[in-house]
């Protein structure tokens, strides 16, 4: 009896702790996240974080602005438009799947209640292809970057506004799992995403300025000089995980989808400005 009582007490206590740990709402998280940067870089306008490291690096910004005069991602936009407009073998086009397209950037990622999962734009595009008997695109390299460049370009100026619907606890759970991913150390080097892009944002790692996480999602896909081409957000996730010597996860698998959901939510209120160009 005594033991049972002790067990019950333990259960009650651990229960309280669990609720305490999850007590912050997404809105509170967002505020704390954005305030962190306001405090660290008081002279940077919140909307300027869409420019990544260049929002806090005046020297790098000059080089970047010169690059943006002849955007290296331009051919990808044109190619993407051709893909968007080209009919599938069955005569239909992407427009049949996405009547609001091509400016779809601001609609993703989003919680899909019927599927009980976070839907990302690349996954939705591939679902459309498969539904029409076409082969899906690869998620990191190749034509997906063309069509995403076109869609991003058409979506410029839309405001990031990820919603976490309250009528489905799955949505909050997906957000929480993305948040957990973001703050969890992984790999042999033991870094969480937050170590570089929150805790040490603006600091210099060898010769590179660590970019702020705020605004990270607004400018993808990105032409990266290091890649010599345009690449997707999930390709970048993969690269980051490899850099900390963790085994990367599947592009548009559950882990990265939830991460995208959380990370994009953190940039709520910022305008979309993809495709971008980076070093």
């Amino acid at each position, binding site marked *: 009896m005594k033991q049972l009582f002790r067990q019950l007490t333990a259960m009650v206590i651990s229960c309280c702790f669990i609720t305490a740990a999850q007590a912050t709402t997404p809105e509170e998280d967002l505020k704390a996240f954005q305030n962190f940067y306001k405090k660290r870089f008081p002279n940077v306008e919140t909307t300027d974080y869409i420019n990544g490291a260049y929002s806090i690096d005046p020297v790098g910004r000059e080089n970047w602005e010169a690059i943006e005069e002849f955007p290296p991602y331009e051919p990808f936009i044109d190619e993407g438009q051709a893909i968007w407009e080209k009919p599938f073998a069955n005569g239909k086009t992407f427009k049949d799947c996405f009547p609001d397209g091509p400016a779809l950037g601001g609609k993703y990622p989003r919680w899909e209640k019927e599927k009980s999962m976070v839907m990302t734009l690349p996954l939705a595009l591939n679902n459309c292809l498969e539904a029409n008997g076409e082969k899906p695109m690869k998620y990191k390299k190749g034509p997906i970057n063309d069509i995403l460049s076109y869609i991003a370009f058409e979506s410029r100026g839309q405001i990031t506004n990820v919603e976490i619907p309250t009528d489905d606890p799955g949505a909050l759970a997906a957000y929480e799992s993305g948040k957990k991913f973001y703050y969890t150390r992984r790999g*042999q*080097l*033991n870094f969480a995403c937050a170590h*570089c892009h929150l805790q*040490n944002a603006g*600091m210099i790692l*060898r*010769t590179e300025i*660590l970019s702020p996480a705020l605004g990270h999602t607004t400018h993808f896909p990105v032409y990266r000089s290091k890649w010599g081409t345009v690449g997707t957000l999930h390709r970048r996730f993969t690269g980051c995980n490899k850099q900390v010597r963790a085994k990367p996860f599947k592009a548009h698998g559950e882990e990265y989808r939830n991460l995208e959901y959380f990370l994009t939510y953190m940039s709520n209120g910022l305008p979309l400005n993809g495709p971008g160009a980076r070093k």
Partner: protein
Amino acid sequence: MIGNTKKWIGMAGAISVLAGQFLVSPAIFAEGGNAVAEGKKISFDRKKGNCLACHNIIGAPSPGNIAPALVAMKSRFPKKEDLRMQIWDATIKNPESAMPPFGKHGILSEADFEKVVEYIWTL
């Protein structure tokens, strides 16, 4: 943790039994001055210590500024063992430290780790 350590010792034993056949005996501890010089090389190596990614070392090329400069180490760590633990796993002292656990996670081999400690201790 103790259980784990025991397991490693057992495994290390298994390796040395196998290695014994080939008369391989790794020289873990190099001589004093030599260890410092080698430790410096390892500390600067981007694929090994890569200390400069985050720390400044006086006279070193393009260091980062994420973590404190590596100066006056003996006054900051009067006991060499404390410095050793810091490089082994910095999160013991500060759970939020961003420094990779060079010893604990085997980022450096044991021999390299000891040499790095020797070198950093001289700064």
